[in-house]
């Protein structure tokens, strides 16, 4: 992937923290890469591992799961479940040799607009380095 191409990154953002943080980054006119396609969920605990798997298998170059910091979840416990699900997905990807760098979990709170900008910019660079997702070309999936 050359530097001009934008990778396709799907982001599942929890409504109360990370989506609000992203919104703040937007209103503060921070530079966010056009690669990120955000999908709002009410809580990071809503993120079904199948969302991440399906995004990956459909050709997303990167998948980001974002939520409130542990202890700050709007629904008290949802992000703990999200954390376990991410650990499970990461482990499955590692064991099977599917690039585990294509999925990630970040805690971004509603006030951390600059963290949101940094995290998405850094991750976009990393995904550019890994290259385009090979599932895009696979007919059998």
């Amino acid at each position: 992937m050359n530097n001009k191409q934008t990778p396709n990154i799907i982001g599942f953002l929890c409504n109360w923290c990370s989506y609000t943080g992203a919104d703040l980054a937007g209103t503060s006119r921070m530079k966010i890469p056009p690669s990120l396609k955000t999908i709002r969920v009410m809580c990071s605990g809503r993120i079904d591992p199948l969302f991440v798997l399906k995004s990956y298998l459909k050709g997303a170059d990167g998948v980001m799961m974002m939520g409130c910091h542990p202890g700050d979840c709007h629904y008290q416990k949802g992000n703990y479940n999200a954390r376990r699900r991410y650990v499970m997905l990461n482990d499955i990807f590692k064991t099977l040799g599917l690039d585990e760098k294509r999925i990630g979990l970040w805690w971004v709170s509603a006030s951390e607009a600059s963290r949101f900008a940094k995290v998405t910019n850094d991750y976009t660079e990393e995904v550019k380095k890994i290259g385009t997702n090979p599932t895009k070309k696979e007919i059998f999936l």
Partner: protein
Amino acid sequence: MAKAIKIKKNVEEGLFDFLKSLLEKEKIKGVFTLKKMDDHGAVSYSLITSPDEFKDAVPLYPFMPVNAGKALSSFTLLGKTEEPVAAVLRPCELRAFVELIKRAQGDVENILIISLSCGGVLSLNLMGEQDQEKAVSKYWESVKKAEVAPDTRETCQFCENFLPINADITVATVGQKDLDKEFTLYFNTPKGEEFSKEASGSSVSEDIETKEIKDFKKKREELKEKYFKETEPEESGLKSLINIFSPCLGCHGCSHVCPICYCTLCEFDSKTHDYPTSSLSSDLRVKGGLKVPSGNLLFHLGRMTHMAVSCISCGMCSDVCPVNIPVATVFSKVGASLQKEFDYFPGKDIEEPAPQGTYKEDEFTKIGEQ
């Protein structure tokens, strides 16, 4: 150390007689075990309540037509059995039953669990074939010598958890050279010990974990490394995964026989992942073609996220696969890694909840803060 009684009989006959006498004396009202179904070698798990019907029972026959843990859950799902039942299960089937009980899919209360040090089971494609009895004799010869038996399931060949956990009574078979003439029953729990009076033999003080068993465990662990390496991604992991699952028909047989897959309506049997052709157009534009029906890897990877952490490696999935995909080996490998990550051993502790349903506040603290 568990109370142990040595019985001077052939192990298959001896266990048969022990169970039959329990049934005749009404110490138990039913026996759940394998039974010969016809003269062509077919066996099936059965719940037998009359001593007359018990004549075709073959408790230690080395076949697993269905995972007994799943079968036990099918009639204890809505509550415990009304009468005491003795169930003969292999260690992995017992672990499957424990995993199901954790998920409110079974009840062990009135069940006397009898298990064995397990040499494995033969592949189901031998059932009903001409070579069946020859394979069974060769199997017992290997078990007595604590060697890996030929024609057993791959998962059995690399299983190092062949000593049962949570069994009330254990039959020692692996590494026992004189199984034709004598065998030992171990009574592990107070519930099991109540039945020790019914065993006519002499008390012995041997530990079930003999040197032969320890060596056998090592042999199997080596085989595990070998089999896991064979499913290692050589080129890209994706290509390797596609190669392994490309023959898959999508019959979902693996999921249907899996004891941990108990969902009444499996997500992958539902319409959730069906899409109209209009939504395929972007895929078709980019790729120029699409396998139909699609969703093959999504099914297998998705099923891994649902149950691999509780995979007890019974091997039912590989055995029923019509196109011989090594499903059990792949899932066992993923399962082993997940179980290590969550420090979880499926089927060990009935009180320990399955990892998906729980969390700890202070675990994986570095995740997400990068």
